[in-house]
């Protein structure tokens, strides 16, 4: 459905009186990822990893500086140049904070009606019917159409944001941390709604988040991002059965969990250390080497390539170069 190949988004860093370009922040750096229909791809990373930039690039908020994006086999950029509206009808986004992504001066009805007007869907009465149906879809009572966002709770606002994204009947949704601003009990309800919608309306999600435990329960495929690059990409089942990249192991072992059974699933041996380096000044070679417990000489010289350890499980790490069995074994019991 969506195929990204070598996608790049670099931001120039300007300094001095003439705003000279002194460097680049490689927010998204040669990302290759393909998403098939009805998949829920979890894009997981810490702040500054470029996961949101990638999502924004897909929906067209940023223009990529390199690489290709294909949507249903066609060049997405060319499609967007030819008819931006047709693309935005198909690809929509739900933002993180519903408090700031909804216009406080507009009623819910006005907010939801705008995409229908923009895409010329229906006349006034038909639109009202669509709005009522949208409210049912996201399980909100109809009279809420005439309220303002300030009269709704955080979870309800996020439902409105989901309804707005669904208004034009898209096939593909970018969800940018849709649940992270919510309390756990509300978060669970919204995640359920999103799952039900994807099944019912055959939606495809790019689910951007920092919450690996949530992805364990939601995603069909997981991509871990670090400093603009994907470092591990796998089918969700395989991924959680055997996380391979040292960064993934560090992430997993840092998650605070609520039960003893979960504790046994975490890789115990990794002690988290260090902080994400500045994206202006990314370490040479493998960008994770400054925090990696397994860092070797080769890591500072050569940026590792993706290794397909098994089918549907790719890792970008020198530990797995050549997929030698003993190396894998060593990483597992190190």
């Amino acid at each position: 459905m969506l195929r990204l190949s070598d996608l790049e988004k670099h931001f120039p860093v300007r300094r001095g009186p003439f705003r000279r370009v002194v460097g680049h922040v490689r927010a998204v750096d040669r990302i290759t990822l393909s998403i098939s229909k009805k998949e829920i791809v979890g894009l997981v990373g810490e702040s500054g990893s470029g996961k949101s930039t990638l999502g924004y690039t897909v929906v067209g908020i940023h223009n990529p500086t390199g690489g290709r994006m294909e949507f249903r086999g066609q060049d997405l950029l060319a499609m967007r140049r030819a008819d931006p509206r047709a693309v935005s009808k198909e690809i929509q986004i739900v933002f993180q904070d519903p408090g700031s992504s909804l216009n406080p001066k507009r009623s819910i009805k006005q907010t939801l009606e705008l995409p229908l007007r923009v895409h010329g869907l229906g006349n006034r009465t038909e639109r009202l019917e669509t709005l009522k149906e949208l409210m049912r879809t996201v399980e909100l009572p109809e009279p809420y159409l005439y309220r303002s966002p300030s009269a709704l709770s955080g979870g309800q606002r996020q439902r409105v944001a989901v309804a707005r994204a669904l208004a034009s009947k898209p096939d593909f949704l970018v969800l940018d941390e849709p649940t992270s601003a919510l309390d756990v009990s509300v978060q669970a309800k919204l995640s359920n709604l999103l799952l039900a919608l994807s099944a019912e309306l055959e939606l495809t999600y790019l689910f951007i988040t920092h919450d690996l435990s949530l992805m364990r329960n939601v995603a069909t495929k997981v991509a871990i991002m670090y400093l603009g690059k994907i470092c591990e990409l796998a089918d969700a089942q395989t991924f959680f059965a055997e996380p391979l990249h040292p960064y993934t192991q560090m992430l997993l072992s840092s998650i605070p969990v609520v039960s003893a059974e979960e504790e046994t699933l975490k890789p115990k041996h990794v002690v988290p250390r260090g902080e994400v380096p500045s994206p202006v000044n990314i370490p040479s070679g493998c960008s994770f080497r400054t925090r990696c417990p397994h860092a070797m000489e080769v890591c500072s010289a050569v940026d590792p390539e993706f290794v397909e350890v098994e089918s549907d499980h790719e890792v970008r790490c020198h530990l797995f170069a050549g997929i030698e069995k003993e190396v894998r074994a060593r990483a597992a019991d190190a």
Partner: protein
Amino acid sequence: MESRANVFEVRDLEVGFRVFRGHLRVLDKANLVVEHGEKVGLVGETGCGKSITMKATIGILPIPPAHISGGSILIDGRDILKLRGRALRHTQGLLSLIPQDPSASLNPVFRIGTQLADAIKYSTANANLGRKAIRKRSIEILSEVGLPDPERNLASYPVQMSGGMKQRVLIAMALVTDPLLLIADEPTTALDVTIEAQILRLMREAVDRRDVSILLITHNLGVVREFTDRVYIMYAGQVSEEGATSDLFSTPLHPYTQGLIASVPKLTGEGVASGIEGMVPDYLDVPPGCRFSPRCRHAMPVCSEKPEMRLPEAAHGVACHLFSPAPGEEKPCSD
């Protein structure tokens, strides 16, 4: 050590707000105890009264519209609601706050060294130190919290630091006054998980090394489970359950606690939980008695009376009518 008063104790605290719409009754006889050297968690969702408790304690509750209509807050055995002036400042000086958002909590126009020096100068523990002594103390405390290159960082501005580094500086500022009690208000919410793990380890080390207790206020159940010895669960201004952390997580008794723990996405991959129906009540019109009853699966007529905190097991209390000692009462299945 001879037995001393509890470091921190909140007794039957009632806090309300008088606003245009009416009278909001937020805290409803909240009780809380932190003993010496204990790591205690206070958990609840947004709007449950966690921060109100914290603000009342450190004296930044906006009065009016807020007013404290009853109860007491004891720090080292003295009721700060009855103290004034120097005595109040001295008692409040026994506690330190680690705030939530490290970026918003440091002044962007002053260097780290200046801000840390202020914390040292105005604390009773370090009174009358000279410039050099203050600098020495600053470097000591910054290395204790694991800030790299403390001497150079004294001259840094907050914008030059990452979130994790700023939180380390704030922990240093909290520890430098040699407090009896640290109140950490969502100390890791703004941080990434790998940084969070490091900050929690740092706080745990600080507590173990010093004679200090900690009250960790958070909505993150995982953090509480990993960090604390004892937990209080708060819902809509009432303490609904309390107990040793391991007991409370292995056998949660209160329906709210059960729902809360079930709502957290699990690494075991059991699918997404259904969450808890309904939402936190409006404080203008709180349900009488148990405030959770409108959302509770087990709600009974008796729930319109406030349940007392009971102790069905030692050191594990629950405020729920399901655990009333009346004979023939149906017990909830522990799901």
